[in-house]
């Protein structure tokens, strides 16, 4: 008999406190019964970026409230659940710890099984939650904290084919917005300005395109933006709105070009494996940018692969994706104990050599 499972998910690895309830009957699509996200944007606005200690403070006092709201919105009680899934890393460790401890408390109290979930697996499996895509598919994970190409082969099996060697693009968008006096988060602000700008006026580099691999770099683009801005300021004593729009357009175009070209190369590697239904899926907040989406769509058309991007609410951090990974792992028999360890670093691909943070503490993501 097909078994119906109801899973509670908790997420607190960056600046969103989230809880969700997911239900799935075996072999049928999963239903998101509720997905609650408390964002912390206002808390961090004065600091121009997420402050880990402030984020952790907010998570610790909101998680249980968020869980109550998710249960109530889903019209479920703890007794209706089959398991609790919680982000156990990678991410800002203060928030991850609060989520893990809250989930452990609920698990101990109710006897419900606990499943620690990799946050990146949440993003990487979202196309299965939203579109039921079959393995193997190529995934571009592109957000404020991450940038990597993964071939998803199973719920627990990922091969990284490339990634950033420094910053994530979302970080670069935020920094660019700060340097140009635009509001945070930088992505939407820059996209709006770029529409009014001339992308060809300023010469932005296209980092690492001279290298034949799928690795990316975005920190040089930030420096380029700063130099170009300062040059205009030195000439005129400030920026006109047109200067600013042109800088935004040039920057965005460089990011889109680099992501598109590296996606082309990643697709080539993936297509060489002859998948029966080839798909490139994109997730993460940067996937909301229409210029980038268009560039990726074109690359997929050219390669003969389908392109998919989950709806924005499921592209950015949420707990439905965590519940979904929990569900897939629960079905495969995974369970964690009350000694589950919160991990700041936890690469999805445990085999490929680290691109980031390969020091004493091991690979970052």
């Amino acid at each position: 008999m097909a078994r119906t499972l109801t899973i509670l998910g908790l997420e607190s690895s960056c600046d969103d406190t989230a809880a969700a309830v997911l239900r799935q009957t075996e072999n049928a699509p999963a239903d998101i019964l509720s997905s609650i996200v408390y964002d912390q944007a206002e808390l961090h606005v004065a600091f121009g970026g997420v402050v880990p200690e402030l984020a952790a403070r907010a998570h610790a006092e909101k998680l249980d409230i968020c869980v109550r709201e998710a249960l109530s919105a889903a019209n479920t009680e703890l007794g209706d659940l089959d398991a609790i899934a919680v982000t156990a890393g990678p991410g800002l460790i203060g928030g991850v710890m609060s989520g893990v401890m809250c989930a452990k408390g609920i698990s101990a109290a109710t006897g419900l099984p606990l499943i620690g979930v990799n946050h990146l697996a949440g993003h990487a499996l979202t196309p299965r939650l939203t579109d039921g895509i079959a393995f193997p598919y190529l995934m571009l994970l592109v957000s404020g904290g991450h940038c990597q190409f993964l071939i998803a082969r199973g719920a627990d099996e990922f091969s990284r084919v490339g990634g950033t060697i420094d910053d994530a693009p979302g970080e670069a968008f935020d920094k660019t917005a700060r340097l140009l006096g635009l509001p945070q988060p930088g992505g939407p602000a820059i996209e709006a300005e770029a529409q009014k700008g001339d992308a060809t006026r300023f010469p932005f580099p296209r980092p690492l395109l001279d290298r034949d691999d799928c690795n990316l770099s975005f920190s040089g683009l930030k420096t380029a933006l700063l130099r170009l801005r300062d040059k205009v300021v030195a000439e005129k004593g400030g920026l006109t709105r047109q200067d600013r729009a042109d800088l935004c357009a040039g920057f965005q175009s460089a990011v889109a070009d680099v992501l598109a070209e590296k996606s082309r190369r990643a697709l080539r590697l993936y297509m060489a494996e002859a998948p029966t239904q080839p798909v490139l899926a994109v997730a993460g907040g940067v996937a909301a940018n229409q210029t980038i989406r268009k560039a990726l769509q074109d690359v997929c058309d050219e390669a003969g692969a389908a392109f998919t991007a989950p709806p924005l609410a499921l592209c950015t951090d949420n707990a439905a994706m965590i519940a979904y990974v929990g569900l897939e792992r629960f079905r495969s028999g995974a369970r964690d104990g009350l000694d589950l360890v919160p991990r700041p670093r936890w690469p999805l691909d445990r085999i490929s050599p680290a691109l980031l943070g390969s020091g004493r503490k091991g690979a970052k993501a």
Partner: protein
Amino acid sequence: MPSEHLVLGFDTSAAHCAAALLSGERLLTERLEPMTRGQAERLMPLLEDVLAEAGIEWADLTAIGVGVGPGNFTGIRIGVSAARGLALGLGIPAVGVTGCAARARLAPGATVGIPAPRDQLYLCDAAAPDAVPRLVDRTEAGDVLAEPSPAGLAEAIARIAAERWRDVTAPPAPLYARAADAAPSRDAPPVLLD
């Protein structure tokens, strides 16, 4: 089913996991494990050990008491988050107990100073142990109560929770008593000419 109320108190506000289980006035079991790291892994199994030793199930508990600090930021979040998850799962109240109130219970009337980083102390107000303590230099504080055993602290937290659980109106929240280290962005926006 025991007729006395069962209250579990625990604390992770410094380099330890400590817990105590009360049945009415009586201390059933207590546990102390010093540790500089690993509280998030160890706390819940330790609490399960405490209950098992007394032959108690989670569902038998009447209330939970948790140390809310001040102390190590990460440590107090570990304790508070666990207490809030347990309270939600069990449908029972969780009582947040400040480090000042717990120490005042152990040594009524004493001047209490809780160790803080950089040779400072959180100096408690003996007349108002639930108030936010003042952060002062150690030299400025004069003689303060010697730090109690964390096991004694957990027991005091449980005793205070046993007195207060009926009147709880808000879930436990960390008492940081010190602002987060966060500096505003240094990127100055350019002058706009039009």
